[in-house]
């Protein structure tokens, strides 16, 4: 082959100096990160505190009281008895919803006809509130783990499904043509073209679904159960144990935050090309 020689720019390898620089940057980065994460929550807690300390309302205890209740309620074996199984169900439900949502979303996104056929029914199902859905599921599935999972899936699958559909519909036609003419088909076509190019929107759906799954975990435990994080919150609410109720909500929030951190990691590695391309043309 005749060879053309144009090197694409000189590449400087990082030496030891840049490594120390990088560590320094990392340390500074961790500090800044902590400030970024904590600043607003601290302000909000102070605000809450200022508000509740003066006009004490029965339903809004001070942060101190909530923290006390939190320590008492959750920093004990209660966490293992009630919270851990709930988190397990939540993760299982989310995983099922992700799989179901992506598979159905790809199928419906690819076929306008399938979508036109299924959409009214799906929209119908989507509009049914879980409190009326649960009795039906109890009837169809029974009162068991599967029912709880079904509730979580039935609620959190929608953002994944809708976003996947839209992501799949928006695949760049030039890439579609590229795949067609190189006859990239089947599984490879699905994984290298469809899923990848829909992934930014799919990630949006998954992020939505994660917090919805937490909410539905709570709702699923409001029916036919006698344990679980959601159950504890509802029970505390009904028993007017308001600080305990808030401590449960606090735990949900913390759970949501922790999961979103993990999710962020996954997202960054899945979408590194996407972020990279964006950052690249901004020249940073």
């Amino acid at each position, binding site marked *: 082959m005749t060879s053309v020689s144009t*090197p*694409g720019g000189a590449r400087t390898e990082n030496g030891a100096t840049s490594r120390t620089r990088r560590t320094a940057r990392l340390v500074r980065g961790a500090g800044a990160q902590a400030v970024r994460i904590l600043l607003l929550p601290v302000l909000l807690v102070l605000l809450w505190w200022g508000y509740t300390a003066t006009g004490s309302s029965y339903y809004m205890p001070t942060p101190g009281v909530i923290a006390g209740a939190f320590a008492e309620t959750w920093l004990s074996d209660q966490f293992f008895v009630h919270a851990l199984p709930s988190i397990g169900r939540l993760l299982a439900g989310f995983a099922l919803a992700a799989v179901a949502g992506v598979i159905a979303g790809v199928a419906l996104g690819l076929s306008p006809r399938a979508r036109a056929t299924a959409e009214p029914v799906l929209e119908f199902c989507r509009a049914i509130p879980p409190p009326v859905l649960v009795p039906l599921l109890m009837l169809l599935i029974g009162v068991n783990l599967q029912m709880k999972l079904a509730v979580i899936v039935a609620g959190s699958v929608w953002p994944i499904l809708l976003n996947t559909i839209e992501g799949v519909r928006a695949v760049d036609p030039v890439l579609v*043509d590229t795949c*067609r*003419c190189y006859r*990239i088909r089947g599984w490879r076509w699905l994984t290298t073209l469809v899923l990848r190019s829909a*992934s930014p929107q799919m990630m949006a759906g998954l992020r939505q679904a994660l917090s919805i799954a937490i909410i539905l975990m709570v709702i699923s435990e409001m029916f036919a159960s006698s344990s679980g994080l959601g159950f504890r919150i509802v029970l505390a609410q009904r028993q007017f144990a308001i600080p305990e109720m808030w401590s449960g909500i606090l735990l949900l929030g913390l759970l949501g935050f922790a999961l979103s951190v993990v999710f962020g990691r996954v997202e960054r590695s899945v979408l590194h090309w996407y972020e990279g391309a964006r950052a690249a043309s901004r020249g940073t």
Partner: protein
Amino acid sequence: MLDVTGVHKVYSGGDREVEAVRDLTFTLPEGELACLVGPSGCGKTTLLKCIAGLMPPTSGQVTLAQRPVAAPPPDMAVVFQEYGRSLFPWLTVRGNIELPLKKKKLTRQRRESLVAEALDAVGLSSSGPSYPWQLSGGMQQRVALARAIAYEPRVLLMDEPFAAVDAQTRADLEDLIRTLWQRFSMTVLFVTHDIDEAVYLGQRVLVLSSAPTVIQDDIAVDLPEERDQLTTRASSRFTELRTRVYEEIQTAKRGAAATSGK
């Protein structure tokens, strides 16, 4: 053999219709290298997509080796005009080139050597691990080209594949295409706006008219098979041919100016 018979294409999107191609008929014998020139917007890309089986013509037919083209035929590679968008941003340069090879039953080694050779041929040997969006426009275009040649197609369709590279690289790539074409006896259809390039590369130059698009002229390039950037381009026959093509395009556009006045 590639047969294009009475191809007519109308785009109908929104509230208006655009007749991109009126009526095109020509035949490209197997192993021929033809260049396609014509005014901007005359329907070259449209024609290419019809030939590639990416788009059905409104009427008329394309056949390749006696089989009507309804979907992209096997062993065909296309370099798209929108080279930037035809690269997968989530794959590295190497990944992009390797992807179409994966479904060919090749050993891993063979695949890797094909990729390396193609990258080397377009002068990007060190860019394999980069992502397309880390490359300049011209480099991206060369990646798209490398993908096509690594695929070792029987039919190669190229839509202005050298538009974004510098003159020197372009000359090298022209020679590369001719070398590959001779070596693998591919059928090549090459769209370009550079008249010199069309004459230098092709065995034949097809000139399209402005819309309503028909074949304005079909010029056989009777230059010697062995071509060389310096001597061929300096030959008087070359000059004659390029003048002929230039005039045809002028006519094509004047015709359009005249009709568009109505």
